[in-house]
């Protein structure tokens, strides 16, 4: 089976977010970057499905040249080849622009299954679902288990049974025919990391660059980015670790009466 995995490069959690002078984006020229965590789980799930059913795993990432970093990482972990949907405007694209760009690159591949993470820390949790509509295939979201039965169902590649996470510890099984798009929840599997052999092998794998033109008109515009005002006035306890700990315990006893 042919599986496409959409991956996004995001700023690392450790990077100190700073707003740019125009207050329209963050100062990401000096950011450090990594693979969006739920996308890593989506990639792992694709690799496991390939091990079970055979086929091919293709990673697709939309963004400027810097995203080849996460593409190489995905290839090192075991993806077979990659498509880089290339465009400077994709660095700040909204979900619809990103989904359009991804769909244009994915459609000719005619995959059986498209996986992506359920959301990114800086995004909208929309791309996977919008992509399904653009590709004209069924979808399901926040998935914690993927089972493919190649011989049943009416679809091109058999039937798909997925475990959808609902709120508050509830789940639901959903079945549909392939092809389909799934958004994968973190924790669905245990991640593998790239081996040295994988990293060496990745250098020989194909990365196809597909240029993407900016849309004629944008549907959403950020007018201002800022540090949100605090809901509560936090009492910050200062001092050495020992002093601060002692003071905090005192406050929790005498002021908050919480212990």
């Amino acid at each position, binding site marked *: 089976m042919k599986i496409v995995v959409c991956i996004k490069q995001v*700023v690392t*959690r450790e990077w100190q*977010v700073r*707003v740019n002078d125009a207050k329209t984006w*963050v100062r990401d020229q000096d950011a450090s970057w990594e693979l969006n965590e739920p996308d890593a789980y989506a990639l792992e799930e694709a690799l496991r499905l390939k091990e079970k059913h055979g086929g091919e795993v293709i990673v697709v990432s939309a963004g400027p040249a810097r995203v080849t970093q996460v593409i190489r990482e995905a290839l090192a972990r075991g993806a077979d080849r990659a498509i880089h949907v290339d465009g400077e405007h994709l660095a700040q694209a909204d*979900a*619809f622009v990103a989904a359009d760009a991804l769909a244009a690159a994915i459609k000719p591949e005619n995959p059986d299954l498209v996986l992506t993470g359920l959301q990114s*820390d*800086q995004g*909208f*949790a*929309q791309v996977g*679902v*919008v992509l399904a*509509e*653009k590709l004209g295939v*069924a*979808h*399901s*979201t*926040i998935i914690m288990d993927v089972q493919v039965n190649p011989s049943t169902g009416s679809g091109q590649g058999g039937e798909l049974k997925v475990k*959808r*996470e609902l709120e*508050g*510890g*509830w789940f*639901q*099984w*959903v079945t*549909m025919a392939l092809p389909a798009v799934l958004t994968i*929840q*973190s*924790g669905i599997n245990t991640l593998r990391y790239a081996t040295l052999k994988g990293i060496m092998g990745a250098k020989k794998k194909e990365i196809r660059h597909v240029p993407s033109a900016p849309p004629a*008109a944008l*549907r*959403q*515009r*950020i*007018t*201002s*980015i*800022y*540090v*949100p005002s*605090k809901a*509560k006035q*936090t*009492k*910050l*306890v200062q001092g050495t*670790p*020992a002093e*601060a*700990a*002692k003071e905090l*315990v005192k406050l*929790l006893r005498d002021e*908050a009466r*919480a*212990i």
Partner: protein
Amino acid sequence: MILVIAEQQHGKLNRASWEAIAAAQQMGSDVKVVVAGSDADAGAAAKELAAADVKEVVALGHDALGAYTADGFVQALAAFVGAESPAHVVLPHTYQTRDFAPRLAARLDRAMITDCTAVKAGGPSTGSGQAGAFAFTRPMFQGKVAADVVLDGPAPHFATFQIGAFRADAVKKGSAPVRSAAAAVDASQIRQKAEEPFREAKQAVDLSQAERIVSVGRGIKGQEHIQIAQQLAEALGAEVAASRPICDAGWLPMERQIGSSGQTVAPKLYVALGISGAIQHVVGMKGARTIVAINKDADAPIFEIADYGIVGDLFEIVPAMVAALKG
């Protein structure tokens, strides 16, 4: 007109629907509510929604909507929204909304903004006329910054609001007329087949009853360090809990997870160790009476809701707290 898409399961209204109505009422006075489902379920939920001060509540019913599917709901609501032509469509940012609403907006080819925490009137004009000018506020970059976003293009514009961003009890009450409408659904076009929701093996740990909770996040760095939190919990007479990544990694069992996909708690004391404060976690614990945050990142969003905080190394501070509690 602002159309709110409410959510129900087996006729029981999802409380987040009230929050979406409160958001819509803040945006304008011409508000309608629609709730989709089987005739009986949509009807029951609509009756409850009629207590809101809105122009009309519509029960959008069809047999094929009895069990939720993305395809069924997108079909039914695309036809309904098309016929009603609202200026805005407002939804609560629930898991179900996340499953179908982006596809609904894509099918109608309309702009959408998700997970908003506020809406401000009188944003810069978008030039789109009909939809009017609003700036929607949403968190970005792990909640470390907020962005004001204006939507453009033809109406309606879609917006989903984060759970807890508006208060359900802030809804202006009234007595709205209820109308039943037959949903336009072609059941043969529904590709997903959904089974009944279920819970995994009964949860052995009921954290909602705990008076005090010590909760760990990514900052704990490794499974071998969980014992540091356990020692503090013991000294405080607290239960140990965690944010999602810790349970994903298997460092603590899933049943100790706090947040939108885990348990919701409101203890007397909640000590967050190395927890950044992602909204998915915060929705599960912000009802705690006293919140303490210990984190090395002074910009971590957890400090936005903490009563007490220490910016520093939890590996030094927590043992010192244990010593102070015993001393």
